[in-house]
């Protein structure tokens, strides 16, 4: 919770003023029964005074109390709203920044949908929690405590009844709330089950029908739904107890109070008006208590959200702590012969998972074209993700331009490496906006050149030039069109190392061929990594890395590998048939 409180730091004044004005309002409310008590006593003694103006005076006093209450309450609402929205603004900013600053492994672990829920639903819940807290959390206890204190000023003995009442109410409310929380959790998990079954029944509609499993699936759903309904009823039976029970308790205490009041009046210690005032204070406690119970539900929800948000922020702390530990980055000194070196590299994404890469070693010379081939899940994407330092190796070292990636300045490293990810993603904006992700200062000429090299001229043309609009996610383009633009985007960067992660899968063979030919003509002579499942895409490479289940299965040219790498030969034959067939 502390982790999130700092977002209220700039709103200290509001955080103090909001509850303060709320308490002011409550204070005026507490005066009302006193005014009524005086009024009633005056009426009782009317024959003695014969004065009617006190009725008007009381009326005016009540209206003044109401107006002052209204003003302070509105003021409080404003400060609370200001603090709550300011809180969530700062929180959203930091959360967004944190999420973008996470390490790749952390991004994988969290998952996109979780990250988005944290940023939206959870922040909103936390915001309304802050708002309600500032408005009510002090007000309700203040009224309850205030009512008790007022009771004491009226009559000590009667006030003791209040103390007992408040204690009992507190225990009852606490017990009901506490026993309700695990029940609500039960309901939630049943609801999740219903949700996942509904989803399954839809996503598997074809298979379910093909196997005529409709009845079995329906029975399973009915079972889960039945479960949900019965847990909902159980939880409802407990939470539905709250209002009736508190009502009964308070009214029984009212009976006790009035009974005692009568005795005190007969002793001459109290007036009738004072008994009415005490009765009114008890009614006020009932009203506030119900509000307070609702508030606790809201606060509990907000705390749960806050906790989830905190977990994300702490992940971010972890990521930045590691970064800040390494203030000085190693600079490259000499022109290294090898631009990329892997030395006994192993990678494991998660402590419990299997190794994605095991003991990989190779060296790549500047300007070479490298092919990486292997089956699905063989570790191709993992291997290239290590070059720009997206993941940390579990053991072994990756050196780029002679520097251990761990010690390199991450910004510089990213500038050196141009990567075309497997999933061709573009962003909302113009084509030029998207291409300039590679280099903000690129001229239109440079953009056009990159477009030409990536064989994407027709794509740009079809959208009406570089200023053509791209919709979110690039959904107004086909897969192949997107792929070529993402390649252009990487080329705008003029990177020393260019990585194409299976980025030509949606291109036809001819375009793929032209693209590879163009890459050979680049004047800055980058080192090119081509990841592919197709032998045809990598067979011309200077060196081919063959991966099989995370292991290095072969290293060499096409001809060499055909001769001495069983795995490579199998891949080749599965695509082209046996030689000479």
């Amino acid at each position, binding site marked *: 919770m502390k982790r999130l409180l700092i977002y209220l730091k700039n709103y200290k004044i509001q955080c103090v003023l909001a509850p303060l004005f709320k308490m002011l309002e409550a204070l005026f409310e507490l005066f009302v029964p006193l005014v009524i008590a005086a009024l009633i006593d005056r009426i009782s003694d009317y024959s003695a005074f014969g004065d009617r103006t006190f009725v008007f005076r009381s009326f005016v006093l009540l209206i003044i109390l*109401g107006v002052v209450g209204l003003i302070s309450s509105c003021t409080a609402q404003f400060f609370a709203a200001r603090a709550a929205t300011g809180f969530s603004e700062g929180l959203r900013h930091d959360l967004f920044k944190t999420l973008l600053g996470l390490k790749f492994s952390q991004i994988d672990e969290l998952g996109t949908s979780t990250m988005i829920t944290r940023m939206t639903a959870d922040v909103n819940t936390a915001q309304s929690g802050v708002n309600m807290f500032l*408005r009510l959390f002090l007000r309700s206890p203040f009224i309850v405590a205030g009512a008790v204190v007022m009771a004491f000023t009226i009559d000590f003995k009667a006030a003791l009844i209040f103390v007992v009442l408040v204690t009992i109410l507190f225990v009852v409310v606490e017990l009901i709330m506490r026993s309700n929380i695990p029940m609500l959790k039960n309901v939630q998990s049943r609801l999740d089950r219903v949700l996942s079954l509904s989803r399954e029944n839809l996503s598997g509609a074809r298979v379910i029908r093909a196997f005529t499993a409709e009845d079995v699936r329906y029975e399973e759903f009915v079972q889960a739904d039945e479960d949900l309904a019965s847990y909902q009823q159980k939880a409802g039976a407990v939470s539905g107890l709250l209002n*009736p029970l508190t*009502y009964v308790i308070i009214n029984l205490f009212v009976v006790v109070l009035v009974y005692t009041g009568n005795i005190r009046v*007969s002793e001459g210690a109290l007036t009738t008006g004072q008994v009415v005032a005490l009765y009114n204070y008890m009614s006020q406690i009932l009203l506030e208590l*119900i509000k307070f119970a609702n508030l606790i539900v809201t606060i509990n929800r907000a705390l749960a959200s806050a906790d989830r948000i905190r977990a994300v922020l702490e992940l971010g702390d972890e990521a930045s702590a590691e970064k800040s530990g390494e203030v000085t980055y190693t600079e490259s000194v000499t022109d290294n012969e090898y631009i990329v070196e892997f030395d006994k590299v192993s990678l494991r994404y998660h402590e419990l998972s299997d190794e994605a890469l095991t003991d990989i070693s190779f060296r790549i010379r500047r300007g070479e074209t490298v092919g990486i081939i292997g089956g699905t899940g063989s570790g191709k994407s993992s291997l290239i993700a290590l070059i720009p330092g997206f993941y940390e190796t579990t053991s072994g070292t990756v050196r780029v331009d002679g520097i251990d990636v761990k010690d390199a300045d991450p910004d510089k490293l990213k500038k050196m490496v141009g990567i075309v990810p497997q999933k061709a993603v573009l962003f909302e904006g113009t084509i030029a906006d998207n291409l300039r992700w590679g280099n903000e200062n690129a001229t239109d000429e440079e953009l056009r050149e990159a477009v030409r090299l990536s064989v994407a001229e027709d794509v740009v043309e079809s959208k009406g030039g570089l200023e053509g609009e791209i919709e979110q996610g690039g959904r107004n383009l086909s897969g192949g069109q997107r792929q070529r633009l993402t390649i252009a985007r990487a080329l705008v960067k003029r990177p020393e190392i260019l990585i194409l992660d299976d980025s030509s899968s949606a291109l036809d063979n001819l375009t793929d061929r032209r693209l590879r030919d163009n890459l050979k003509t680049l004047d800055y002579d980058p080192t090119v990594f081509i990841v592919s499942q197709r032998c045809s895409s990598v067979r011309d490479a200077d060196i081919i890395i063959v991966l099989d289940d995370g292991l290095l299965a072969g290293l060499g040219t096409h001809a060499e590998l055909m001769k001495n790498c069983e795995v490579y030969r199998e891949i080749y034959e599965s695509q082209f048939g046996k030689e000479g067939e």
Partner: protein
Amino acid sequence: MALDTSGFVPKGNLNTDETALGNSGRKETIRKVLHRLSRFKLHIFISLLMATASVIFTLLVPICIGNVIDRISELAAGRGVMSETEALAIRNALNTELIRAAVFAAAVGISSYIMNLVNNRITYLTVRDIRNDAVKTIGCLPLKYLDAHSQGDIVSRIVADADQFADGLLMGFTQFFTGIMTIIGTLVFMLRMNVAITLVVVCVTPLSLFIARFISSHTYQMFRTQSIERGKQTSLIDEMIGNAKVVKAFNREADVIRRFDEINGRLTGASLKAIFYSSLTNPCTRFVNAVCYALVAMTGAFFAVMASDGNSGRFISGITIGTLTVFLSYANQYTKPFNEISSVISELQGAVACAARVFEILDEETEITDEDALSLTGVSGNVDLDNVDFSYTADKELITDLNLHVKPGQRVAIVGPTGCGKTTLINLLMRFYDTDSGTISVDGNDIRNVTRRSLRSSYGMVLQDTWLVNGTIADNIRFGLPEAPMDKVIEAAKATGAHSFIRRLPDKYDTVIGEGGAQLSQGQKQLLCITRVMLKLPPMLILDEATSSIDTRTEIKISKAFLTMMQGRTSFIVAHRLSTIREADEILVMRDGHIVEQGDHSSLLARNGFYTELYNSQF
């Protein structure tokens, strides 16, 4: 439980088209809801009875207390003047009133708790039934519907909408009737005590309703602005966080954060306005309440004074102090049912909109039941397609005049470029879709004359999408044959080669897969999909792009499993990799919904036509 509406934030999306649900649609939905509720006649009767009881008793308690107060003041006034017997009589009356108050309070507690329980039961069971019906309907809906509608949307109707409907219904039941009863009851009780003071309360109280209306209608636009900004922000978050890796790879964090902050600032401004102005409702209604209270106190005091003056008229009668306290306590509570009813109404409107969305599914036309149709048994595997026409949308024809005759045990491969109608053909064979014209028959029976179940269970199907259920490996293999004994399961797994990887899993066949369970590779999943067909082993097979998401080497291993399975069975194989279909008895080359070439691999190559073109483009 009444929710504090001071933080009133409209539930759900303001953009939802409540207006789209026309008046007639709303009435129709309400009619359906009532129809479903009619099952619970007895429950509803009990609920209404209990609500009435709890309202009456709630109103009686302050009257008892008022009477007690009068007795107290009588005793106080008569102290030293009254005779002991008089005082005793008053004291006895006082005690009786107190006991009545206690009994009434207990009655309120009991009746409202029973009402809560009954209402819980009505709502949760109603929603449970609606949900079950929805899932049952989905099981019978034509795939055309499921293909055309977003899964997320359907799921949210079954789960979220049904849930919100339950909330609304429950709140409606609990508060709507109680609220109305309270308003009427209070009015009757007040009128019996004093007409003039009642008029004051009746005139002033509705003001708070008007104020609440006024504020909510003026904040509506603010909430819209807020939800528009929020929508923009969510879409930016979705885009950037969803692709955080690309953003990072290109060092664009600063720029993206700058764009985010811009929207964030606007959102904060909009939220502040919406939250602040809407949160004025509570203080304002409270103020109206305070004014009402003050007016009641004043007029009440006059009447009380009048009473002690002793000049009560026929219509305007004086009141006692006890009556004044009863009035004050009624006045204090009287705005509550109004506010509750107005929030219940908006909640109910939302609930009706949600119910309408669920009912839309229930009202979809389901596939016509075919229980009395012919049941296919002992299929030998003759499949004939005659002059088949089909299209998904009327304006775009897909398959036209397709003819095909397959003999038992033949292996038919279907190839062609994307969108040529390969998968569509499978949809027709399985009768996921019906042909527009022409007939498909199995062993000479038109498939429209046999039950869908018997037709579908004659085929074993493996798709590109390796859909598995959340459950154990054994559950998944048994999917089509839940009663299969374990040794049959293992036998099937051995036949497909899945056994070797299953053996290495931590809990072998009992390993749970899916959400939170063991992660399988694409190839392993596909092997399980094949194994579940292997266990059932129907007379005909359909393999729709079954190996396209697997690399070519794994494919070779899986192909062995396929070969074992296809032995002696009519099989249809859809593939885009030509290497997988070279061994088929008959290859259909499709283009734009037609079969353009037909024959075996070598004869098609020899023809040097479209097939040859497709084949060569791979290299």
